[in-house]
């Protein structure tokens, strides 16, 4: 299920603007990899290239390679739609479909691949996905209520349930907790720790403690100035990164002596 990702010399552009320059790194399966760095350094941009979601933005394009278990995501016969069915994504702001019920939200992605789903299969999938997202107990009595009737933290876990319902190989999360309170944040961090048994997880965060708590590996991105491309500065074990980073810039950023 979970797969490794190797990125080789990746440049990301918005039209002519080079947003991320020459990134090469490897993401291990069954582990959590965190991306940290100042605002605008291209973390989201880079993350989106891992499931080709940057192509949704007008002008978004890449040069270089992204290999998932050796298969180039940008190869000739690769369909971005299929890529996204294998590499799921959770966004900064919870975005359940407001007109769908909680259960339908969970099933939304699954239904794309399986036009006919028997009722019992659907119920099982809803339950297992919601359990997987630590949300089952809170919503099991109101599965037919709209997804937008939940609190922000619950909505975010619903989005995670929706993402894992299609059993992806990789789960990308772009600041999944930044709109949430500390308690919901902890709930999601616990969930991430549980999920890494099955998935390759990549998370973008502005919260150092969060990166330190949940991730096994941390990558630090930085930007030389506005209009300059973002670059990967350093990547290492999370414990090493936070205790003895090898780059001065990393140390400054982590200790808050930034900019």
């Amino acid at each position, binding site marked *: 299920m979970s797969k490794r990702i190797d990125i080789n010399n990746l440049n990301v552009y918005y039209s002519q603007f080079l947003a991320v320059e020459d990134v090469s790194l490897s993401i291990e399966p069954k582990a959590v990899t965190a991306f940290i760095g100042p605002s605008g350094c291209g973390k989201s941009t880079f993350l989106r290239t891992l499931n080709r979601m940057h192509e949704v933005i007008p002008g978004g394009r890449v040069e270089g390679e992204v290999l998932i278990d050796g298969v180039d995501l940008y190869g000739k016969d690769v369909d971005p739609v299929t890529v996204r069915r294998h590499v799921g994504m959770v966004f900064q702001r*919870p975005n359940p*479909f407001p007109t769908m019920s909680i259960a339908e939200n969970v099933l*939304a*992605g699954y239904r794309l*691949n399986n036009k006919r789903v028997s009722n019992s299969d659907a119920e099982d999938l809803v339950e297992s996905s919601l359990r997987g997202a630590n949300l089952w107990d809170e919503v099991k009595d109101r599965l037919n209520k709209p997804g937008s009737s939940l609190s922000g933290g619950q909505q975010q876990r619903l989005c995670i349930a929706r993402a894992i319902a299609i059993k992806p190989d990789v789960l990308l999360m772009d600041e999944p907790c930044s709109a949430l309170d500390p308690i919901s944040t902890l709930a999601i961090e616990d969930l991430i720790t549980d999920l890494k048994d099955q998935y390759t997880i990549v998370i973008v965060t502005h919260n150092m403690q969060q990166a330190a708590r949940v991730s096994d590996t941390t990558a630090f991105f930085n930007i030389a100035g506005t209009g300059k491309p973002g670059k990967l500065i350093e990547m290492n074990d999370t414990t090493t990164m936070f205790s003895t980073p090898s780059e001065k810039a990393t140390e400054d950023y982590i200790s808050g002596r930034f900019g």
Partner: protein
Amino acid sequence: MTTTPSSTDSQSAGNDYGTHPGARANGIFKGLSTGAGVLILVTLAAVATFLLVEAWPAFVSSSEDLGQEVSFIKPEDGQSLMETIGFLVYGTVLMSVIALVIATPISIGIALFISHYAPRRLAQTLGYLIDLLAAVPSVVYGLWGVAVLVPFLNPFYQFLADYLGFIPLFAAPESGEIFTGRVAMSAGIVLAIMILPIITAITREVFLQTPVLHEEAALAMGATRWEMIRMAVFPFARSGMVGATMLGLGRALGETMAVLMIISPGLTLSPYILQPNQHNTVAGYIALQFPEANAMGVSSLVAMGLALFVITLLVNMLARWVVSRRSEYSGAN
């Protein structure tokens, strides 16, 4: 409003919270906008009163008297005032529904193409072109309908009648009559072209307002663009689409010139949209009869106008209501 300082003295006396520089302009604007709102209500009431007062004589006089006095009311031929209104309302609604059935899917298709498929440059050009369609006067549509569209469509009608004639809707004219093309179907098609811009413009706006958040949610789980449209765009836009369709219907119901020029009129409740001399619209009929009408005739025509007014009002109110329900859907966050 309650604490207007009575003199400069009371201002300097220490009340710092009395008035502010924008208060005056705000008051003026409030007055103007309230006035405009009231004016609209008064106009509407005046129109309704006019229609009622003018139509009253026709409504209260007996069917025979009316038949004697008004050349186009013929109770003995089954064309009393009420029956005529019935035929005309039926004809109006029939042609408007034909127009809607044709225009709605095309409009939604164009709007989706503009909002979600076309490259930006092309989308803009197409948007302008559609808006231009709305600027064509209806007389021009009528002329074009008669000169170009009807001759062009007539062979298709024959084809339709040959193969689908067993469906009453598409039944061929009685033997002896010929296909003229000046039928409800043609009028409906021209009406469809006329209401296309408004439906397209409104649905396009609604589609464009779909939250990117929801579109990306769909795309990120591997939806194709069409699946994304069904998951995120349509549910969000549903009531907007219904509202737009009904505004289009409102426009089609009141259209006069184009229909008048195209159709060979008749007064029946027949479903035969490929046969001439079957249908007419309220507006077309009024325009046709008005120049020759005597006092009682005018009163009868106003009664028909009242019927059209009521239907159009109902449709528009329904449209507004449906559109306003959107706020419930706009949903999360």
